[in-house]
């Protein structure tokens, strides 16, 4: 079993009003030192077949999981994960 963790984040310069709202809430809770809160996505999946996992994940990110106009992506691949 191969486990893949994908992180999708907004590109620098892309407005993140949700992050701003969370930042405001954290400040209200007394966390005054918090800055630059950005919200992203975390997607996890498993592969039963170890063939060409990296290539497939790369394509998935480009074709669907991330929008290259506004988002960056990164991923980690863990081999031999037992569930």
């Amino acid at each position, binding site marked *: 079993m191969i486990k893949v963790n994908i992180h999708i984040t907004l590109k620098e310069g*892309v*407005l993140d*009003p*949700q992050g701003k709202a969370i930042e405001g809430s954290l400040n209200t809770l007394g966390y005054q030192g918090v800055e630059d809160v950005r919200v992203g996505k975390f997607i996890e999946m498993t592969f039963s077949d170890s063939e060409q996992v990296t290539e497939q994940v790369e394509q998935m990110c480009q*074709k*669907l999981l991330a*929008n290259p*106009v*506004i988002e960056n992506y990164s991923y980690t691949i863990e081999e031999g994960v037992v569930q």
Partner: protein
Amino acid sequence: MKFAVIVFPGSNCDRDMYYAAKDALGAEAEFVWYQNSSLEGYDAILLPGGFSYGDYLRCGAIASTSEIVKSLHREADRGTPILGVCNGFQILLESGLLPGALLRNKALKFLCHHENLVVRNNQTLFTSEYEKGQMISIPIAHGEGNYFCDPTTLAQLKANNQIVFTYQNNPNGSVEDIAGIVNEKGNVLGMMPHPERATEAILGSEDGLNLFKSMLVNWRESYVTNA
């Protein structure tokens, strides 16, 4: 003239589009389910608003992988007029038929009211019945209508006169007040405001009707030219 109204799971303005084309304009219109692979035989294609696939992942992202979007690419290449409104605009962007992306509204609120739009380009097959600079009142209804593109794309949009509609009072944070854009070829228009909801006086505005009229007039002209 025969319009196709594509229906995705979660479309909710499909009937508004259908009635705008059929009743308000008096043309033919048919619903086309998103699993159909063919768009043959239609003179124009309408992508309605709504929440296809519950806006999962990103608005319009899942819909953009459906079978019918391949046909949409073929029709776009062929020059068939394609209008995407609201979620339809989001699907056009996610499909790569138009440049840019739509982000959450700047103030995070779902906005639902009439906005004044300025017709920036009336030299398109969608806007020829308007005057350049004309102000029109069209309803908006969206949570993610904040148009974004990089500076290079924006420069191209300007250079090619692809910005068709702008907001008079930008409600959502869109760059350059952009409310609607066309592709370079001019046959694919995407816009967040809903012209199909402004086609009869009883709806509060008839300002959207000229968009559909423009499509009809230009189709007739192309028909005469090609005959």
